[in-house]
């Protein structure tokens, strides 16, 4: 985590305690920032070649390529920060394609005035997260925008991974009879962010679930699990992920509410705020649709290798149905209802 780093920031704080416009201006200050802070942190091609881009040999076969931008506030939150999130998010998107993530790009848009110390902490966090996920940062970019035109720091990462198997992991592969397996408990990231942002205090400390999912997915693939589709749960929560898959696959997914694991402190926070955990954001959980015969082995692997995997569970099945493209839920009291996508963010209720 970002707090663990022991090295001190190599840009002399006494001279530049804050990022100034010139740190993105293409001149000496920008050169210094890259040479002294960023290149040494990441090493590899980024430090060695000084080229406009990274060049590398790839093995034959299929590649996966993805990009995502990160604008989270606050920049540091319990269980993570914008730097680790920017690595996990892109690593997870590659993992959901069934790829082994290899290389990431890293682009910063920094608001003038950001404390240099903050940038340093974020850069160190990116490095740690990349090491943990087994990926290399091979190219990058730094821009500085006028004060008031950013929100501290925005990050974009793009990633490349290799697909080393013949499975066709795609929502359209999901078929009646398949089971939906959730890799862990849900809702921690969204509640952790909301609690920090709004200054809400709960009795227990809720940490984000932000984590890389690559290792768990690689284990599933190595074990020969017949994976139909993988999807990481992000902003729209579990519900939105399931609806997207049901629509793409033209199937009816039946979810069992009581099988979805939500930690008591997260549940309590959701009850107080009037939020449904099924729609709360996650950053280190995924849903796997697999052949029903592989359900037990999938669970075993997730319990060992997935972050939060001790709560992994079969939460739903794909039904043969005449009205495809929908998700229904069997409620706690045993009645079935529709699950819908929200039009926007969930807003806390009045009373």
């Amino acid at each position, binding site marked *: 985590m970002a707090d663990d780093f022991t090295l001190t920031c190599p840009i002399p704080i006494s001279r530049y305690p804050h990022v100034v416009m010139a740190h993105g201006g293409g001149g000496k200050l920008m050169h210094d920032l890259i040479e002294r802070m960023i290149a040494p942190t990441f090493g590899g091609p980024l430090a060695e070649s000084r080229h406009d881009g990274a060049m590398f040999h790839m093995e034959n076969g299929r590649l996966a390529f993805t990009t995502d931008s990160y604008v989270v506030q606050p920049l540091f939150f319990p269980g993570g920060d914008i730097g680790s999130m920017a690595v996990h998010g892109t690593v997870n998107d590659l993992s959901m394609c069934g790829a082994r993530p290899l290389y990431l790009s890293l682009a910063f848009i920094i608001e003038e005035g950001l404390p240099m110390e903050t940038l340093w902490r974020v850069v160190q966090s990116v490095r740690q997260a990349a090491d943990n996920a087994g990926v290399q940062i091979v190219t990058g970019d730094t821009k500085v925008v006028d004060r008031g035109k950013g929100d501290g720091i925005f990050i974009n990462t793009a990633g490349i991974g290799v697909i080393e198997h013949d499975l066709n992991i795609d929502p359209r592969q999901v078929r009646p009879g398949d089971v939906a397996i959730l890799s862990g408990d849900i809702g921690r990231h969204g509640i952790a962010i909301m609690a920090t942002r709004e200054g809400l205090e709960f009795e227990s400390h809720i940490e984000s679930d932000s984590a890389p999912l690559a290792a768990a997915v690689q284990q599933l693939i190595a074990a020969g699990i017949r994976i139909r589709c993988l999807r990481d749960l992000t902003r729209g929560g579990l519900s939105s992920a399931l609806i997207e898959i049901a629509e793409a696959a033209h199937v009816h997914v039946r979810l069992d509410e009581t099988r979805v694991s939500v930690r008591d402190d997260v549940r309590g926070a959701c009850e107080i*705020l009037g939020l449904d955990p099924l729609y709360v954001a996650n950053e280190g959980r995924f849903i796997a649709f697999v052949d029903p015969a592989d359900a037990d082995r999938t669970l075993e692997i997730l319990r060992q290798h997935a972050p939060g995997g001790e709560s992994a569970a079969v939460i739903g099945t794909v039904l043969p149905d005449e009205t495809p493209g929908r998700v229904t839920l069997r409620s*706690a*009291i045993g*009645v079935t*209802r529709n699950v819908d996508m929200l039009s926007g963010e969930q807003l*806390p209720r*009045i009373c």
Partner: protein
Amino acid sequence: MRFIDEYRDPEAARHFAEALRRITTRPWTLMEVCGGQTHAIVKFGVDDLLPPEITLLHGPGCPVCVTPVELIDRALELAARPEVIFTSFGDMLRVPGSGTDLLSVKAAGGDVRMVYSPLDAVKIAQKNPDRQVVFFAVGFETTAPANAMAVYQARRLGVENFSLLVSHVLVPPAIEAILSSPERRVDGFLAAGHVCTVVGFSEYEPLATRYQVPFVVTGFEPLDILQGVYMAVKQLEEGRAEVENQYSRAVQRQGNLPAQQLVAEVFEVVPRKWRGIGEIAHSGLGLRPEYAAYDAERRFDLATGPVDESSECISGLVLQGLKKPHECPAFGTRCTPEQPLGATMVSNEGACAAYYRYRRTPQSVTQEDAN
């Protein structure tokens, strides 16, 4: 999880449903007053467990839904002013006025902030002495004490740049309006548990006697609602019309006296217009003359006058239990959460939003129609 799982136990739910079937001999129509109850009913499918003789109608207890359009337009006008920081509970932000909503005003540059407590709005006022901080004080008796406390504290602390845009409403007058309507279909009420936590339930006793209808003060979990329905039906079957308390773990007959005193200190009873329903006498709260300095409608010179409501939206009929959401021709077509004609389609406590979110499938509509 304690206080949650035991009220969602499927075995106990079936047990209540069975007991209810045994005592029900003829059709009864009950109204759950609170929108929170409506959402629990639809979300957990509580009504699917009821015998076919029992119909649940959804009542007016959605504070956002009954806030009149002109007050929302005034909120929008205030929120767009550069000197104003407009604060509100989250649920109000997406509710349409006659043109736009608070989130759109925010996108256009207005300083609109969601708060979790009106006291947070007072803090914002303290931190921004050169700005005017307005809090949109909507809600029933449940939110009135906290809103009263905000004004009380603002005065005590000398925070002069704080004011309330008040749209407080009261439950018993609305129930009386429904009971005295010639179109009345309701045989009994599930009274809103949280409102009664504050005000108690003695106010319902004369209504139960005068109109000969049972009231059961009811909680919000599936088993609370099933038990509330059971108690109301039992009264009806036995020919009783009393006020009973299902939600005894939270509600006492006299309510929360310090909260009531605070509300009485700051607010007085006033007539109030309800969106889709019209004006109901003695049905709202307004700031007392001693606190008039904290009234945003007095503090600011507002241009918004009376506003016509959407002629196509039937939310008034829905809020009075005269129509169900899917009986509206615009439901799910010209009126959706993305393009709402009325507030009942966007609020967390709105009946139309509950039906749209949990019931929008071919089967469920058929099932509803069968009821």
